[in-house]
C-alpha cells in the first residue's frame, strides 16, 4: 500500500492482509486436524477428506475438532488446543 504523507493514515498497522502459513511438502508423519465449523454438511466434506488422506498420505494421526458455531471465531481454548496438537489444519465450509 503506497503511503502519502500529505494525508493521515486511515488504517492501522495490524489491519493488513495476513499471510498464510507455509505449506508442508508432504503430510507423511504429520498430525492433521480436520476442523468442522458447524456448517450444514461440513462433516460430509471432512469425512471424504479423511478417507482420501488415509488412502493417499501417511499422516501420523487425523484429529476431528468442531467449532461451537460458524457465526463466531473459534474459542481461544480450541485454537490453542489445535495449535498444540497438530501440524496441519484443514477447515471445512459447506452448506
Amino acid at each position, binding site marked *: *500500500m*503506497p*503511503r*502519502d*504523507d*500529505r*494525508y*493521515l*493514515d*486511515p*488504517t*492501522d498497522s*495490524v*489491519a*493488513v*492482509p*495476513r499471510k498464510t502459513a507455509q505449506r508442508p511438502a508432504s503430510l507423511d508423519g504429520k498430525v492433521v486436524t480436520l476442523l468442522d465449523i458447524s456448517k*450444514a454438511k461440513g462433516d460430509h466434506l471432512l469425512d471424504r477428506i479423511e478417507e482420501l488422506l488415509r488412502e493417499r498420505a501417511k499422516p501420523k494421526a487425523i484429529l476431528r475438532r468442531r467449532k*461451537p*458455531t*460458524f*457465526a*463466531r*471465531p473459534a474459542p481461544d481454548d480450541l485454537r490453542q488446543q489445535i495449535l498444540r496438537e497438530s501440524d496441519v489444519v484443514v477447515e471445512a465450509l459447506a452448506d
Partner: protein
Amino acid sequence: MPRTTKRSGGPDSQADAIEDLYAWGVTDGLPVVPPTLRRVEKAIAASGGAADDLIALVPPNYGRATVEKIAVNAVMAGCRPEYMPVVIAGVEAMCEEAFDLHGVSATTNFSSPLFIINGPVRKALDVNCGTGVFGPGWRANATIGRALRLIAVNLGGARPGVISMSTMGHPGRYTYCIGENEEENPWEPLHVEHGFAPSDSTVAAFAGDAPQGVYDHRSRTAEDLLTTIARSLEVIWHHKATALGDTVIVLSPEHARTIAGDGWSKAEIQRFLWERLRKPVKDLLPGKDGGEGLPEHVVARFPNPERNETLIPKFRAPEHLKILVAGGTAGRFSAVIPGWTFPNGSNLVIKTIHIRA
C-alpha cells in the same frame, strides 16, 4: 504517523488527492475527502476525546479505533466535525461482542450494520427521520453511515473479496443510517424501550439486509395491517426459515397510527406477529414445496413429520421483532429488514452518544 501537510492548494491538487487515495486502496469506491491534518484535527477537537484514546478494536483484524483513526475515516466520509460523537458511539456499538462484527464482516450473507439514531441529537445534527429516511439527501445520515463502513474496512479489514465475502453485498454497504421518527411514534422510541431516558441520544447497530417494502394501502385495523406485515415477514431468508433472531420492522407514521389507534402496544404487536409466524412441522420439511426447510436434526425430533402439526416459530422469541417508526408522514408503506440472526449471531446493540459539553 505522518503529520506533515505539503499541499499547494487549488482544484487540481484536490483532484489529484482523490486519485491518490483511490490508489492507496482506502476508499469504498466513491471519492473521499482527503484527510488532511487540519481537517482531522478539527474532528478530533469536536470529539470530546484525545487523539490517542482507544475506543475499540475493530473485528475481524482488530485494528485500533483510536479517536484519531476514527476522525481520519470520518473526514474521508465527509462528516462534519460535530458528527464525531455519533461515529464514536457507532464504533462502540458495532465492536461490542454481542454484535459479532467478525461474522457480519466476513459472512457470505447480505448483511451490513444499520445505524439507528435516537434522541435529541437527531435535531441538533439534522438527521433525517422522515421522508426518504433510507436516503439519499441528508449529509448526517449519508456520512455517518459511510464513516462507519470505512472504519469497518480500513480498521477492521472488511475489504470486499478479501475478508468480506458477501456473495451479493447490498447498497446499504455504502452507508446505512437512519433516525427514528420519534415525533410520529405513538409508542416509546427504540432507545427508551431498551432502558434509556428520552433525553439520551443513542445509536443502535443492527446487522441487516436491505429493507424490503411492505405495501398496504387498504387495511384500517391493526389486525388487518399486521396480517399483511406478518405475510411479508414470512418470506424472510426463505419461506421455511426458522429460529431467526433480531429483525427490524420500520413502520411508517400512517401505519403506526392505524395500529396504535386500535390500542395495541408494541409488546402486543410482537406477540401477534410471532404467533402468526409459526408453521406446522409438516409445512417446513425440506424437499416439499422447495428444497429448503428444517435441518435434519430438528426434523428427527418429531414423529411422523409428514403429518406433524407441532408449530415451529419463525422467530426465536417475540422480543426479537424490533419495531421502529420512521419515514414520511404520507404513504402507507412499511419496511422489514432481515437480520444476521443465527443462534449466537448478531444482536442489536445500543450505545449512548456522549455530546461534548
